[in-house]
């Protein structure tokens, strides 16, 4: 079975699906759902079939569009190249697409024009899958463009609300500023090296960095920075995530900013191999740390659930960028693992937010409350997501964050540079603040007292809960079975990122890399002393015994006699204690928590309000200013 065609088929299939849904989809719901389901599932099947050869056997698939083989060493046609790194991101992409599609069947049923919705959705997924599989720089840019415009259109999908249109407009402007920079960078590269194939570019650029290529690097660095929403460019992302329908914002946080990160890795690790220079590493780590901190502090101050989750996506991307910026084996593995985990738990959290929106009609933290008794399953899923993102041990957030701390501090100790230790400290503090903001959400939305108008909320239908349960199980599984995950998926992916020779030889025939003088970095076996799973088995044994005790003991207690459904008229023994008063509705909402923290940081928050002013020209100005800084920095450092 010649599987080298599969990536191309998968990408084209998705675009074909988009086309078909546009034609047949607008008439009947069932036809539309079937088309979407069929195409997403077959794309997923095709890509997952490739996991065994690429990941386990270490084979790199190279496929030339239209059979345009490279002519005496020069690659002319568009080449698709799937190495372990792109396979890793492909798994991520495919998983997110499938789950979001299943979720949106019931979630979007109240909206109109669903035909157009699914077209844009399939366009977006096809673009990102294409972006991940391509080996050609310009094809990468084209896919980025399709992704951006599909994303902008989806953000403005519910165009009745004015704020959605404004958010889409902002995303469009900043997105195209970024794409502009990327395109200029690519043209400069093409002018210099007369080729667009990444492998060839990398072999030609490995030693001789001329001013033109350095400018190209700086511009493309900004371009991909914009796409992955790191700090100077993160503001439109927050609005975009909030206003897009939740099944789409899950795809945004799971896939779209990962695509930006993938572009960044390709750029810095493979094409320019600029990571050996200390200054670039410090730049990336600095950007990551700032993104982390600003993302989480802004999230703490939010009043809306989806906006809070958006800022958390930005801060978690900060984690991934910091880890990747370290350029050590453990760092890259940690970064990739955190990217995977982030897709899982952030997707889960967005799905739960969607469920709350679907059931309760609003995601405003001040007007929600006490939903855990009305929607118990969503509450459990949300708790699993919240505990994984804040990195509590049994869940997956802990495993990847732990690796990131180990990597940053190992880097600090080996290079003797205190800056990395500062990065570790910020990472830990940001992780606690993440926990704080999710405690705020659980208290504001799920626990506490239920306002009168939310008494009738019911649990969301099963087809929305299925993706939630799948993601929750994946979160727990990747947290516990983390040793095997590392062996089969993470190690090959991080090796592929660090060692370019395999990538080049696969595309242009063996030996070209050696001739270009690119030596293979001996990737140190990742030595982390994570505690072995037997300790975990005992923990689970204890928990099991304890839970049975609680259940058994639970029966004996004369627990709450569930009086009439309306919770307000319960009085006497089982009413909450109001120092004697009759228990009335007084719910400690999300916005009045963490008074002590906000008071101490009031100066900082005033500055933040200034930066997130909300008008487009500020954001565009920030993007261009950042590009200028990067250009100056690259010239000073690289030449």
């Amino acid at each position, binding site marked *: 079975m010649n599987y080298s065609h599969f990536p191309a088929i998968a990408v084209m299939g998705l675009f074909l699906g988009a086309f078909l849904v546009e034609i047949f989809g607008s008439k009947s719901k069932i036809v539309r759902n079937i088309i979407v389901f069929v195409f997403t599932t077959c794309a997923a099947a095709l890509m997952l079939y490739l996991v065994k050869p690429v990941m386990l056997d270490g084979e790199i698939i190279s496929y030339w569009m239209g059979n345009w083989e490279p002519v005496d060493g020069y690659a002319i046609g568009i080449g698709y190249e799937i190495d372990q790194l792109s396979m890793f991101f492909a798994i991520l992409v495919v998983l997110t697409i499938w789950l979001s599609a299943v979720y949106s069947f019931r979630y979007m049923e109240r909206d109109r024009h669903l035909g157009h919705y699914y077209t844009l959705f399939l366009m977006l997924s096809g673009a990102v899958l294409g972006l991940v599989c391509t080996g050609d720089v310009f094809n990468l840019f084209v896919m980025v463009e399709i992704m951006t415009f599909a994303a902008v259109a989806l953000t403005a999908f519910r165009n009745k609300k004015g704020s959605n249109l404004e958010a889409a407009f902002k995303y469009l402007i900043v997105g195209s500023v970024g794409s502009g920079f990327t395109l200029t960078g690519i043209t400069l590269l093409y002018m210099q090296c007369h080729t667009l194939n990444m492998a060839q570019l990398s072999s030609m650029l490995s030693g001789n960095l001329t001013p033109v290529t350095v400018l190209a690097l700086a511009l493309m660095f900004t371009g991909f920075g914009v796409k992955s929403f790191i700090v100077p460019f993160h503001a439109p992302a927050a609005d975009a995530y909030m206003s897009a329908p939740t099944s789409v914002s899950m795809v945004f946080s799971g896939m779209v900013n990962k695509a930006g990160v993938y572009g960044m890795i390709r750029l810095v690790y493979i094409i320019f191999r600029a990571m050996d220079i200390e200054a670039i590493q410090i730049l990336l780590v600095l950007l990551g740390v700032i993104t982390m901190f600003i993302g989480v502090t802004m999230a703490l101050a939010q009043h809306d659930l989806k906006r809070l989750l958006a800022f958390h996506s930005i801060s978690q991307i900060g984690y991934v960028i910091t880890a990747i910026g370290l350029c050590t084996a453990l760092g890259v593995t940690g970064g990739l693992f955190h990217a995977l985990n982030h897709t899982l738990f952030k997707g889960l959290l967005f799905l739960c937010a969607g469920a709350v929106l679907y059931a309760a009609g609003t995601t405003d933290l001040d007007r929600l409350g006490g939903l855990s*008794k009305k929607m*118990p399953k969503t*509450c459990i899923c949300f*708790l699993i997501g919240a505990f994984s993102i804040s*990195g*509590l*041990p049994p869940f997956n957030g802990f495993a990847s964050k*732990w690796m990131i701390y*180990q990597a940053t*501090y*190992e880097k600090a*100790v080996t290079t*003797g540079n205190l800056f990395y230790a500062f990065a*570790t*400290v910020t990472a*830990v*503090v940001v992780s*606690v*603040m993440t*926990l*704080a903001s999710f*405690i*705020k959400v*659980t*208290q504001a939305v799920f*626990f*506490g*007292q239920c306002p009168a108008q939310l008494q009738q909320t019911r649990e969301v239908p099963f087809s929305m809960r299925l993706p939630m349960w799948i993601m929750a199980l994946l979160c727990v599984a990747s947290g516990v079975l983390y040793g095997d995950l590392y062996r089969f998926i993470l190690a090959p992916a991080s090796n592929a990122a660090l060692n370019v020779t395999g990538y080049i030889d696969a595309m242009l025939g063996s030996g070209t890399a050696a001739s270009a003088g690119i030596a293979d970095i001996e990737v140190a076996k990742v030595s982390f*002393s*994570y*505690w*072995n799973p037997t*300790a975990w088995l*005992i*923990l689970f044994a*204890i928990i099991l015994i*304890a*839970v049975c005790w*609680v259940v058994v003991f*639970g029966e004996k*207690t*004369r*627990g*709450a006699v*569930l009086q009439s459904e309306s*919770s307000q008229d*319960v009085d006497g*023994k*089982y*009413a*909450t204690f109001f*120092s004697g008063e009759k228990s009335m509705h*007084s*719910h*400690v909402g999300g916005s009045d*928590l*963490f*008074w*002590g*923290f906000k008071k101490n940081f009031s100066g900082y928050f005033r500055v933040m309000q200034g930066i997130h002013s909300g008008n487009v020209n500020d954001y565009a100005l920030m993007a261009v200013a950042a590009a200028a800084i990067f250009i100056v920095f690259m010239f000073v450092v690289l030449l």
Partner: protein
Amino acid sequence: MINVLATIKIIVKTLIFPGAFFAMAAGLLLAGIDRKVLARMQKRIGPPVMQPTYDFFKLMGKETIVPHAANRRVYMAAPVVGFVSLAVMMLFIPIGGWCAFTGDADLIVILYLLTIPAVALIVGGSASGSPFAGIGISREMVTMMSYELPLIIVFLAVAKKVGGDQLFFGFRAITNWQIANGPMIAQLAMIPAALAMLLIIPAEVGTQPFDVAEAETEICEGPLIEYSGAPLGLFKLNTAVKMLVMTSLFTALFLGGITSGIHTGITLWGIAIVDHILRALIHVAISAVITVVSMTTIHAATARLKIEHLFKFYWTAVTGLALISLILVWIGF
């Protein structure tokens, strides 16, 4: 075939010696000593040292009322999860140089295991649906945010001191290093870090000046307001066991080398029972001394802080202390 003796040994370790039972007994004992010494500092006789044990068993006997607004499952499960994580933590902290489980467990793992009891209290309080609890958990969260920063800096300083240019986060490495060149507290550079750690312990356990979250007078015991009977007993037990965990963490990090010289060699069924008992006793004695030094004296001398002062105190004074020692270690003291 899992060899039976090993599993029995693991189960015994988990449930009896350093695990649940030992943690419970030693924790309640430490809490009793803390209350007794505090009373003596106020020139009064004070309760018997077994008082927390009596409190625990009395609460076990009380009726458990689950308020109507509470989410029953989470409300009942929260204290149990808290206790389980504390019991597991005791397995990984070396007692007198001997680790129940793999010696190379890691400071970061301990750091995160420390957050689970606090999160259990928070989620439990939030699940009880009372507005007082809402305020209580927000204060508990800010307290956690405030002591986490200096705690990680202290850990990094210790790891750097032990590791030199490689990275050793594991307890076995720390203990071996301390056996080789004397307890960490004797090093000049590490004294500020030890001081910072001593100041962190009361905030983590939540004793008087820093128990803003469970202020009896202002917000009627904060998150624990709706709890009664067995769950409340478990939460009180969690606080006591946290005392034991934090003090034994301090001993492991800063007084490592002292107690590791005990080898009487008398073995029973292959387990050096006598060594374990001796080690446990010395360990609890040291923990008691540290409890008195770090928690009781501050408790007797100061009044409860406001939450913003607590946050400012930890992010300026205690973090400063920890940073001094980190920089000193970095320069190569």
